[in-house]
């Protein structure tokens, strides 16, 4: 496995770390994964999530670019007028252009957590080179099912009351914390644009399905606006299948603070990647080429 610094974009002001597998491990024709910043955390990801994921993908024969969007981490801000364009879409397009020119591929998978997932969604919708996407705690909408499972459901869990009491006791000793004792749980309204419409997202997801983009949606219990795997279908009317996979981690926090949860998430992504684009697909492609020769 090798890790290389790459710089690209306007005046080479954007920076990323490209993790590539050893030559003998490399999966031929696999798309390169591109991991987008979560919030304002730099390219290593919350608690080193992105580093762990990139290296695990490399062990599976996949190359991964962890980039810093413009103005984050060690990337410089963009200085040109954006004209209403999403900055992340421009940054990732620069990354894809660089990779396409230098690594002989035009297929990519975008991966993002939280605001990274939102940006990954925008990139996937706007760039046909995206053949796969992993959205971790991305765009969600509360549903009636959410209300019953989460808002009402937790009233029947003793731990809810226990934790509320403990948080208030903790609050008294730490004077400058947030007023809401549940502030530890991430809420999507703080990370995404206010005007996102469920119908628009649904249409975009269906477009991605039509484009044969493989998608993995990962959600955690630490993400306060979703409760349970079934909420996905409630939100979008799309039933999970092999192309659109949905996973819910009921014990995991939003940023995978706990190592065991982080490992589980990275393994899930790696397994998904291998199944969608890994050696199985590579073997099938090789078999097809062989059959054509014969």
């Amino acid at each position, binding site marked *: 496995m090798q*890790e*290389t*610094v790459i*710089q690209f974009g306007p005046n080479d002001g954007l*920076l990323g*770390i490209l993790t590539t597998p050893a030559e003998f491990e490399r999966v031929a024709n696999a798309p390169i994964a591109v991991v987008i910043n979560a919030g*304002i*955390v*730099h*390219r*290593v990801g*919350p*608690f*080193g999530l992105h*580093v762990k994921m990139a290296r695990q993908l490399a062990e599976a024969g996949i190359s991964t670019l962890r980039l810093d969007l413009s103005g984050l*981490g*060690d990337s410089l801000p963009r200085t040109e007028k954006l004209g209403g364009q999403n900055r992340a879409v421009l940054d990732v397009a620069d990354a894809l252009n660089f990779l396409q020119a230098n690594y002989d591929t035009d297929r990519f998978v975008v991966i993002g957590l939280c605001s990274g997932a939102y940006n990954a969604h925008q990139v996937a919708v706007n760039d046909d080179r995206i053949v796969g996407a992993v959205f971790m705690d991305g765009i969600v909408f509360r549903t009636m099912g959410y209300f019953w499972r989460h808002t009402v459901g937790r009233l029947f869990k003793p*731990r809810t009351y226990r*934790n509320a009491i*403990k*948080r208030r006791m*903790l609050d008294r000793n*730490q004077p*400058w*914390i*947030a007023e809401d004792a549940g*502030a*530890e749980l991430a809420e999507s309204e703080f990370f995404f644009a206010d005007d996102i419409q469920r119908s628009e997202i649904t249409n975009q997801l269906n477009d991605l399905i039509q484009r044969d983009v493989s998608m993995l949606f990962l959600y955690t*219990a*630490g993400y306060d606006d979703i409760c349970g795997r079934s909420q996905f279908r409630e939100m979008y009317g799309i039933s999970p299948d092999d192309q659109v996979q949905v996973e819910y981690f*009921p*014990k995991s*926090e939003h*940023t995978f*603070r*706990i*190592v*065991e949860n*982080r490992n589980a998430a990275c393994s899930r992504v790696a397994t998904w990647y291998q199944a969608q684009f890994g050696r199985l697909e590579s073997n099938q492609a090789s078999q097809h080429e062989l059959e054509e020769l014969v």
Partner: protein
Amino acid sequence: MTPTFFGEPHQQLFGALHQARGCKSAANRTVVICPPIGQEYIRTHWCLRLLARQLARKGINVLRLDYRGIGDSAGVNEETTSITHWYQDVHTAIDYACEQTNCRNVMLVGLRYGGAIASAVAAESSKINSLILWEPVLDAGQYLKSLRTMHKQMIDLWVSNFKTPNNSDQEEILGSTFDRNLLVEMESAAVDLDAIDQPQFIVDLFEHRNAYTVNEMQRFMPSEDEDSWTNLQLLETSWLRASTARQITLMADEMFSRLQEFEQLGAHLNPVTSSASALSTGDAPIATATPTASPAVS
């Protein structure tokens, strides 16, 4: 800024080299920044980048490094089994910085546990001309105790019961897995600023000022900041102290000017003669500092 991997091929370290700008840029002025460890590394990344850029604008070359197993450097944190590994990484960074900037010696800037690492390296290296310690961790036992308290709170408040590894081999603390031997070494390693001959500028919280005593080798600047390191709710909040970074930049510039005046920058260092020269301003010294009783620094 030039990002790069350096060091041994089997143990690459990530570094970001900020080239000095301006009229003082040719003057053998180089800083190596020793960052915090664990989650504090991520919280302070932005601030240290800001500091590096400010120093560079003052005509000072700066190398920021990631220790092995942390950030972008090779390895995983749990494979670091001794604090001497981190010391070695700083030595490697110093050698690299000197080679890239044509300097004979460097200033170390250490933030939080990076301050403990910088102090230890300074005590054993002839390539350090001075130190700046920013809210340094001087009592690793207290430091680890506060991290463990936050970790316990975090687990306790979670939606379900959770147990994280804590055995004779490893311990998980706030998102990082540490080797047991490393933790034992951290707890037993004492930071003795008296043993360091190089001049030191220390920035610490106002409430810690009494933990330092007067010594001609050091200058202490109290920070008006509040302790945010032990607050669980700030665990993932970016720690940005632009004003203090600015003051540190100005002090670094002044220290380098003094060292240059006494011809310490281009030379192999004589620790005795470099001592008070970098801090002497002709004015009465501000409270200068050696920690006495173990301060409740965490």
